[in-house]
């Protein structure tokens, strides 16, 4: 327990977390600090390319394993299942319309890549060794939640307006999924020869990219929180409690499928994380009536900071307590 607290403090003092807090503070005080939009998009691309590639190289070293199959099954099940739970909870505790509730629930079923990155940094600092294939699990968990949400909402707009093609592209071919899976495969194919070339880029350079991106996330999260108009106490509670519930589900399924503590911790972190790039983009097409003021604020401005600062060490400690 003392050890966990110690680690939680280490997490809090990591540059990445501190830069997020710097951005959040600057945004909250309405500093004119900004990260140019195209830089933020490029940084996000570099993050995804790097973790995909590193995961692929590691996976190619380890070979395919039963653990990968188990983790993938667990991840897909969580991504499908969490939105269903989230949807009914949201409808019960708030006055959100059907579309907004479904769209919000989809965010919580899908994953946040930066939360994953911060989580894996923390696990490494804690000396926990998870499988390289977990990157592939991240990619697999991005989209099932979107399908769940569409079933829950009974979407019609995209169909009526001939936007099926756009919708499929957003769901199956959205940029982050393509880069993540593509880089994973490239890492797996080019292996250590490829790694020799990209080592510095996906390693130490990546660390700098990460702090810049988190600085920007802090700015955007704070600005969004300040501009939020439709937040109610029930919705705030949802954004703080739902990750805990999802973490619990992630650990339970990990235990059932016999995953190790490190993989289980990653799965719990992924389950608890909420998307703020891929899912919102799909929702603008599939459920244009859903209110982005709700789902983006909850996912980006409440759940993300909570997971980054408090959640990651908590879920890891829980995984070690239950499985380790």
């Amino acid at each position, binding site marked *: 327990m003392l050890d966990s607290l110690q680690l939680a403090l280490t997490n809090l003092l990591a540059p990445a977390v501190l830069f997020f807090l710097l951005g959040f503070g600057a945004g909250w005080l309405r500093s004119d600090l*900004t*990260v140019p*939009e195209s830089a*933020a*998009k490029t940084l*996000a691309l570099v993050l995804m390319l790097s973790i995909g590639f590193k995961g692929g190289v590691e996976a190619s070293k380890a070979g395919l394993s039963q653990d990968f199959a188990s983790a993938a099954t667990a991840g897909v099940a969580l991504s499908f299942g969490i939105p269903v739970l989230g949807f009914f909870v949201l409808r019960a505790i708030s006055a959100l319309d059907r579309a907004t509730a479904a769209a919000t629930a989809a965010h919580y079923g899908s994953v946040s890549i930066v939360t994953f990155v911060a989580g894996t940094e923390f696990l490494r600092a804690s000396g926990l060794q998870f499988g390289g294939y977990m990157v592939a699990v991240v990619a697999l968990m991005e989209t099932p939640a979107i399908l769940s949400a569409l079933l829950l909402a009974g979407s019609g*707009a995209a169909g*009526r*307006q*001939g*936007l099926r093609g*756009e919708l499929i592209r*957003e769901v199956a071919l959205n*940029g982050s999924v393509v880069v993540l899976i593509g880089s994973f495969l490239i890492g797996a194919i080019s292996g250590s020869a490829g790694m020799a070339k990209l080592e510095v880029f996906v390693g130490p350079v990546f660390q700098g990219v990460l702090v810049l991106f988190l600085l*920007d*996330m802090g*700015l*955007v999260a704070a*600005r*969004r929180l300040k*501009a939020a*108009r439709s937040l109610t106490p029930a919705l705030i509670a949802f954004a703080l409690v739902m990750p805990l519930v999802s973490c619990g589900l992630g650990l339970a399924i990990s235990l059932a499928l016999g995953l190790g503590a490190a993989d289980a911790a990653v799965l719990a972190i992924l389950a608890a994380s909420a998307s*703020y*790039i891929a899912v*919102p*983009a*799909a929702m*603008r*097409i599939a459920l*244009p009536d859903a*209110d*982005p*003021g709700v789902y*983006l604020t909850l996912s*980006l401005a409440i759940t993300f900071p909570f997971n980054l600062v408090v959640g990651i060490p908590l879920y890891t400690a829980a995984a070690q307590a239950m499985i380790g």
Partner: protein
Amino acid sequence: MQTTGRKKLEIIIEATVLRRVEQFLDEAGVRGWTVLPSIEGHGSHGDWSSGDFTPGQERRLIVAVATSDVAQRALDRLASFFADYPGIVFLSDVEVLRPERF
């Protein structure tokens, strides 16, 4: 220089549905258009900013000059699209050189 009257359509929509709206313009017979970026906006659904992380929510401003008939046809198609998707459109009078191009 002799100029001729035409209509300028200006359409503000989310980046996500740009391709679809371009298709409408094409179907309506609009022969050219230019797409401009925008940075932020305010409306009945609150504020948005291109600095947010949501790719699709960014707005594009389409500028298209066309004959009155073609503009009217594009407008008809857009009106029903805007029943499902957010967006605004406005029309104004412009004078052009070489009217046969529009």
